[in-house]
């Protein structure tokens, strides 16, 4: 237990707190803009967790893609849609309770699974964590998935543009 009070343990606790606290803000706050800020905080925490899991490259990607792209895109969507401070009627407590019970049940099942399972590491484990290996795999063994993901991204971008443009074109003409 004393390991938690070393510097590494404290920073780990801080990162876990950032992740979970940001997640609570992201789902709990009434103002939609606070939700996005909580999401950004939580994603920074997840990037820190990736650092602890030995992968600074993925941590950078997390910040670049999630915080830098997705959060900003969500901010744009908020500005383009509903006014920020429009008061919304509160939901019925019974529905919130149902959602909480459902989510809590899922957590309990997952947690008991994590506890009960005997996790066995692979017999021989490589130690090649370099970015060069990731790039090599992406262009050789996983080239097909890489191409499929590229196609998905392209189609998604085109679909998003067409979808968002349609309504505007019709109202003008």
């Amino acid at each position, binding site marked *: 237990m004393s390991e938690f009070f070393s510097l590494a343990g404290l920073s780990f606790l801080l990162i876990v707190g950032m992740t979970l606290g940001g997640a609570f803000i992201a789902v709990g706050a009434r103002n939609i803009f606070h939700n996005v800020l909580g999401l950004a905080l939580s994603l920074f925490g997840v990037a820190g967790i990736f650092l602890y899991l030995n992968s600074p490259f993925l941590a950078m990607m997390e910040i670049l893609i999630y915080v830098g792209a997705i959060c900003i895109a969500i901010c744009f969507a908020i500005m383009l*849609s509903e006014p920020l401070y429009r008061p919304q009627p509160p939901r019925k407590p019974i529905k919130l309770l149902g959602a909480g019970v459902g989510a809590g049940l899922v957590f309990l099942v997952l*947690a008991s699974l994590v506890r009960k399972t005997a996790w066995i590491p692979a017999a021989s484990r490589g130690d090649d964590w370099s970015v060069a290996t990731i790039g090599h795999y992406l262009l050789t063994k996983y080239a097909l998935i890489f191409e499929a*993901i590229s196609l998905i991204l392209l189609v998604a971008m085109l679909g998003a543009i067409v979808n968002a443009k349609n309504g505007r074109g019709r109202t003008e003409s």
Partner: protein
Amino acid sequence: MYNTLQTYLFLAALLFAIGLYGVLARRSLIAVLISVELMLNAASINFMAFNRFLAPEPAVGQIITLFIMAVAAAEAAIALSIIITVYRKLKSINVEHVNELRG
């Protein structure tokens, strides 16, 4: 002591449960999208934890996490364009107002 597989799996399960609560409890479409991003991140943490502690090849889990990020970006783009279209049509992004297909 803290750096074990179970710690990360519990953390990911908690993050997933928070995201699931958000999907079930919130009414705004954008809030639902934010919660879905949290759930995708929980899945990424799981992959990275297994990659760190169990997997034979440390590169593979990182590649899968990269793919999750790409799919999340595509999903966010599509979902946001749909949200904007819905807002133009209905002047609301409350999920309970989006029921034109109800019989």
